[in-house]
């Protein structure tokens, strides 16, 4: 063990331990502000610089909350298991902090390291991510059990059932990316997406991203999957008996887990640190990464402000009857499009970008020596028209025609790309729709009678 190694480890980990908790503070403020605005309130706007009347849009609120939390009385119920009651919030924070290490965040000060010791360079970084994030379940269960409160216990049981169930679609949707890249290494996954080859632009990537995001909401107990802490049913679930700093730790753990899982989504689907102007300023990469994380968190907040929560049986049905089959189907589809057909085209978004470009230039200047319209493109447009008219059979027919025609001609690659792109999405949508019809009860708006 040398000094060098310790220095490297510190450089790799300390920024994470500093940056993300600070971002947590900012996120609580952001969430309160955004929710307030969604609800047509103003939100925190008075707490700014202490001892002055400068409000600073309430940015001092997280600090005030933190100070309040620290000084609050720590209440431990009489019947509680005191050791576990203490350990649970700590245990909730540790895995959340640990998994941050597996995000391919390359800070500019990484160049001061003598050897790359970042955890995301591990060959099985993604697996580690899932393995360790699963430990949060235990902490929640511990909290629910140790409080010796029936609501806490119910919350703990719900949390375990929910997190175990949603881990499966979560992992399965990540498997697609792993399959495509052929590596579990986070860095390699990130590198595979440079130059806007984000996996979310592929049909299977899009589907996997949506599944991943929904499952991530459930994993982090965010609305509409916040059953373990469902206020209206079980008071506060596993937090019921927590107060003061222990509660703050839980809160912190939850938000850090949110960052981590959004970070993984960004890594897997949204191109990690990829973005414009990177050649000019490589350090922007981190900013893009964190910016994308905040984008996802904003969507989470937006959902929280809009949706009510599911019931426990619907939650399970959604995981097992909808997300799981869909993600398995998505793996199949990805495999088909990727390996059975031309891998280069189907895997990237080049095709569609190019076909749009080609059609554009063609209509612009037909007299010039420009490439012909992409084979099958017309058919694909027809298919899209049929699709908008909700003529599913017609759309299928036209899309398959587009695919076949494109294949038959010399510019087959582009035709295939476009056709497959659209067709895969439609197949996925139809699959999802069918699964939805099967898994969900036929709930739809009703008509009412009127008496004069």
């Amino acid at each position, binding site marked *: 063990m040398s000094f060098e190694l310790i220095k490297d480890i510190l450089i790799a980990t300390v920024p994470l331990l500093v940056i993300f908790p600070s971002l947590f503070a900012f996120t609580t403020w952001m969430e309160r502000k955004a929710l307030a605005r969604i*609800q047509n309130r103003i939100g925190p706007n008075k707490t700014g610089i202490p001892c002055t009347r400068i409000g600073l849009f309430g940015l001092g609120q997280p600090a005030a909350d933190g100070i309040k939390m620290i000084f609050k009385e720590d209440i431990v119920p009489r019947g509680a298991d005191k050791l576990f009651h203490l350990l649970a919030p700590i245990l909730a924070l540790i895995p959340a902090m640990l998994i941050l290490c597996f995000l391919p965040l390359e800070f500019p000060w990484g160049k001061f390291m003598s050897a790359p010791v970042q955890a995301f360079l591990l060959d099985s970084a993604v697996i580690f991510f899932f393995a360790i994030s699963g430990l949060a379940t235990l902490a929640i269960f511990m909290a629910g059990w140790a409080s010796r409160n029936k609501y806490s216990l*119910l919350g703990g049981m719900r949390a375990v059932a929910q997190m175990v169930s949603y881990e499966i679609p979560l992992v399965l949707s990540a498997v697609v990316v792993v399959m495509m890249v052929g590596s579990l290494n986070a860095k390699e996954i990130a590198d595979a997406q440079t130059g806007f080859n984000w996996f979310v632009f592929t049909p299977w990537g899009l589907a996997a991203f949506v599944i991943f995001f929904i499952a991530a909401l459930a994993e982090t107990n965010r609305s509409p999957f916040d059953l373990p802490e469902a206020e209206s049913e079980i008071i506060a679930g596993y937090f019921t008996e927590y107060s003061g700093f222990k509660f703050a730790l839980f809160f912190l753990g939850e938000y850090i887990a949110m960052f981590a899982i959004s970070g993984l989504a960004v890594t897997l689907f949204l191109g990690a640190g990829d973005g414009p102007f990177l050649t000019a300023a490589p350090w922007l990469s981190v900013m893009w990464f964190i910016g994308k994380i905040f984008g996802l968190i904003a969507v989470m907040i937006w959902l929280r402000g809009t949706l009510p929560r599911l019931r426990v049986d619907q939650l399970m049905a959604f995981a097992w009857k909808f997300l799981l089959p869909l993600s398995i189907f998505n793996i199949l589809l990805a495999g088909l499009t990727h390996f059975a057909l031309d891998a280069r085209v189907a895997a990237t978004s080049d095709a569609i970008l190019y076909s749009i470009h080609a059609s554009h230039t063609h209509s612009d200047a037909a007299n010039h020596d420009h490439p012909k319209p992409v084979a099958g493109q017309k058919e694909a447009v027809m298919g899209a028209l049929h699709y908008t008219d909700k003529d599913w059979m017609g759309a299928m027919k036209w899309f398959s025609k587009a695919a076949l025609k494109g294949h038959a001609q010399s510019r087959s690659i582009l035709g295939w790309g476009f056709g497959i792109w659209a067709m895969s999405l439609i197949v996925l949508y139809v699959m999802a729709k069918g699964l939805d019809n099967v898994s969900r009860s036929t709930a739809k708006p009703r008509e009412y009678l*009127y008496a004069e």
Partner: protein
Amino acid sequence: MSTATAPNYELLQQEGLETSLLEISMGPHHPSTHGVFRMDVKLDGETVVELRPVFGYLHRNHEKLAENMTYLSSMPFTDRLDYFNSMTNNWAYALAAEKLIEVEVPERAEYLRVIMAELTRLVNHVTLVGFFINDLGALGTPLMYAFREREKILDLFEQASGARMMCNYFRFGGLRNDVPEGWLDRTRELVDRFPAFLDEYEQLLCENEIILSRTQGVGNLSRELAINAGITGPMLRASGVNYDLRKVDAYGIYDRFKFRVPYTDGDTGDCYDRFMIRMLEMRESVAILKQALADIPEGDIIGKVSKVFKPKPAEVYGRIEGPKGELGFYLIADGTTKPYRYRVRPPSLINLTVLRDMCLGGKIADAVIILGSIDIVLGEVDR
């Protein structure tokens, strides 16, 4: 012949594995019991197998109090029954007492009574829907929108009566005072703006898949049981009974207004129906308000009646269509200044009769929203 089903207080029998039930006491301080209400629930996993409502935490024997004071002095106490709807409570009491003393209510007062009652109905329904969605787990967003609209109406109440919630505005034979200048215009403006809010509210809630699947098929109440168990108000109409006292009794001057009563075909009678009936009723209330505000005449606000009176011995029962259901007052006069017997028929309490029937077999989350869809106020349940 008899559709009465006596409550069956046996546990649901479980087949197979022997498990012990989890007993939890939801309330009296629980976030979603809408007050100090308690449900002793036995759970099998998350399924409710036994539920026993426990009342009385807010009991102050309102009836006994009223028997020991003059007729007028009870009026402010009726505000505190269903503290969301003090105007309609006042009206129900005034209606019953006016039967005792036979006083003519001036035209303008009648119109203002209708306006106040319908505004109250808007307040009640809009907040109820907000709370209901809150029980479903939405983070209070619809509730905040509801509170914004409620706030505007409460402002109007405050301008008219001096208080936002405990209005104490109705008097036997009319109203306490006339509305201030410009009040009617402000009300007209509010009523004109209200449908836009309802549109937005409906867009937010009525098609949401989660709300649909959470509420449909939950807490079904059949038409027969609803009638037999004395369920009233929107809950009865959601079970497919076209029965609205504004049409049936046509108390006040309700027969002058053109409005429709929404009800269901009675196939489901679930939480979604109860929620939607209230949404639709708000539109009808707006229609009534528009007509009333267009037609309201000038004139006296209260008939000739002394503050303290001695009615002849008689028994009367006056009832109105409160926002929560039939609110009745049963008065027995014995010739003194105080009522011999004063009884409130609380719709909230009686609508709770079927709580257990609706909740059994559902999940605990269903029990919460069923309670929310019944629409209770504990001030009225416990009296």
